[in-house]
């Protein structure tokens, strides 16, 4: 299937967004206080450097999933289950906290899984197309919200830009760098040919994505202040409570937070798709795709019943996936 750069980039943007909010703005702010803005700039710069290095090795080559070693594939499957488990719990918690307070957890879990299975069953094309629609919805919602939030920004809340020591800034920058690079783990599923034009496009896209998140963080901290950002579980949603216009546009936070839900769903479905692809490429015949999909969901539900993945375990799994895919998946040369 021929992919357009824009479509893939929108998918990467939504994945970055999901990863950023799954980690949480408050994780960064607690780590580096008001210096988180600097830490993000530093993290994005480091991310850009490593991404350039990665693209340098990929130049005029293709990454193919079938070249992945069996042991690496097994490890990816194992760690991905924990990632899916964390993501499932997070989405359920997010909806319970921000949208509907009194809803059965099981009902929520099965609803999320049902939607995800449906999208994954449609294949990568289905995920990319739905991501495109999600993106348009999210851009509209965020644009409306930002119009009402701009007057409430107070830059005194962001200053001074340095209020913690360099070690904390570096830790926060490292964390941000990993988050910004992790979505690129999903690129092998597209089997793209990496010519100069495409590399330039993706580098620009990476920078634009980082500018957006920097801007977003600035809005959150300048409106809430660093102490309130540290305090809330979802500061990114709390700012939407401040959207108000003549008592007409009011109490809309549940609607605006739909954008995050769509990003989380993209991340969940893409990871589920990744697990299915690896399973059907290395271990189970392509014809038994449906069986493989239900097998993954079964294992996921069993795992969810016995174990709740913590944010630390999730993050470690994410780093391991990134490292495994970087070091074991060798690009192959191919003339177009």
């Amino acid at each position, binding site marked *: 299937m021929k992919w357009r750069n824009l479509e893939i980039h929108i998918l990467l943007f939504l994945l970055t967004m999901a990863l950023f909010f799954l980690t949480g703005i408050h994780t960064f702010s607690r780590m580096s206080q008001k210096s988180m803005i600097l830490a993000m700039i530093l993290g994005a710069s480091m991310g850009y450097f490593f991404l350039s290095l990665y693209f340098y090795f990929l130049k005029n080559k293709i990454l193919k999933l079938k070249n992945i070693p069996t042991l690496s594939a097994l490890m990816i499957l194992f760690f991905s289950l924990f990632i899916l488990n964390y993501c499932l719990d997070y989405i359920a918690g997010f909806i*319970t*906290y921000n949208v509907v*307070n*009194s809803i059965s957890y099981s009902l929520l879990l099965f609803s999320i899984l049902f939607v995800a299975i449906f999208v994954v069953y449609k294949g990568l094309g289905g995920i990319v197309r739905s991501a495109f629609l999600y993106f348009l919805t999210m851009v509209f919602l965020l644009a409306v919200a930002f119009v009402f939030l701009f007057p409430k920004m107070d830059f*005194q809340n962001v*200053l*001074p830009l*340095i*209020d913690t020591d360099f070690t904390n800034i570096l830790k926060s920058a490292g964390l941000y760098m990993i988050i910004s690079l992790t979505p690129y783990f999903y690129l092998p599923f597209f089997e793209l040919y990496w010519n100069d034009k495409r590399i330039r496009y993706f580098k620009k896209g990476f920078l634009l994505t980082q500018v957006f998140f920097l801007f977003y963080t600035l809005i959150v901290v300048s409106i*809430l*202040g*660093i*102490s*309130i950002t540290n*305090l809330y579980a979802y500061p990114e949603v*709390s700012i939407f*409570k*401040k959207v108000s216009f003549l008592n007409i546009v009011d*109490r809309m936070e549940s609607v605006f937070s739909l954008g995050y839900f769509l990003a989380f769903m993209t991340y969940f479905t893409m990871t589920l798709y990744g697990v299915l692809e690896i399973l059907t490429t290395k271990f189970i015949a392509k014809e038994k795709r449906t069986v493989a999909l239900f097998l993954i969901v079964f294992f996921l539900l069993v795992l969810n019943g016995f174990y709740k993945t913590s944010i630390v375990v999730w993050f470690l799994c994410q780093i391991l996936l990134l490292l495994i895919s970087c070091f074991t998946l060798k690009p192959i040369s191919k003339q177009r």
Partner: protein
Amino acid sequence: MELNQLDVVDSLGIDYQNNLFVLTATTVEKKDEQYSYQVLTSTGATIQEAVENIKIQENKKLYIAHLNLLVLTPRAVNQKLEEIIEYFLENTESRNDFSLALSESIDFLKINEQQNLQESIQIIEEDLGTTKSIQFEDFLKDLLEQNISYLPTIETENEVTVHSITLIENYQTSFHLSKEECILYNFLKNNIQKTAFEENIVLSSETFIRFKNQKINIAIRATLAKENDDFANQLERKIKEMFEKYKEQKIDIFNFQKILKVANYSLSQTNQTDLLDQVSLSFSIHSEVYKNENKEVLWP
């Protein structure tokens, strides 16, 4: 949950007596296009227990997502402020955008005529400048960042009136500001819309505070109803007096330390009491007389 199973809370009073939380909630219900108010009271060892007791009495759940005003008593603030804050932060229904007030007693909430208290606070703030409203999130932010905040104070002795503000320091009630001090406080916070200061009627005012040449520069531009050449001197003198008065008690009444910390990184590393001594003030106050150009009849 259906709407008829909810008691929508409009204002809530929290007191703390004999190791028990005393809750007075004013709930609102819409019947035939008209709002009707109901007062519910209960007690409990925790706020949650008191809320549950109301639920048992009324067979309805207290719904605080539409809470407009939370009134606390000095007893509740001094003994249980952290627990009260925690309750609202942990309650997923709370939107944390309600106003706060302080009152010796919360019994006045039982009188149905007092439903527009939050509006009264805002009107007094806008027209007289003798009080200042505050929302829960801003109150919390001040306490977390500067360890000092304030609450508009309600007097209930003879009649229910809003009277100035009370400072909350280290989660305890501290000083009660006089009306004049509150006006000066509002001047510094750029919160004056209309007020009467000394013999001057101030119709509007704008304040800019900057850190300039190692000094905190306070620039005020006020529009007066009548000309008074001495207005700038009077205002400057009063602000200085008030600042010095609270400085002696190690209270950074105008949050000047925050301005210093924003302007200077090395200063931000020192502790608060040291910093207050380093604050020096400079003023540039300008006043102009209001000219109504649309006036049709001129006084002879």
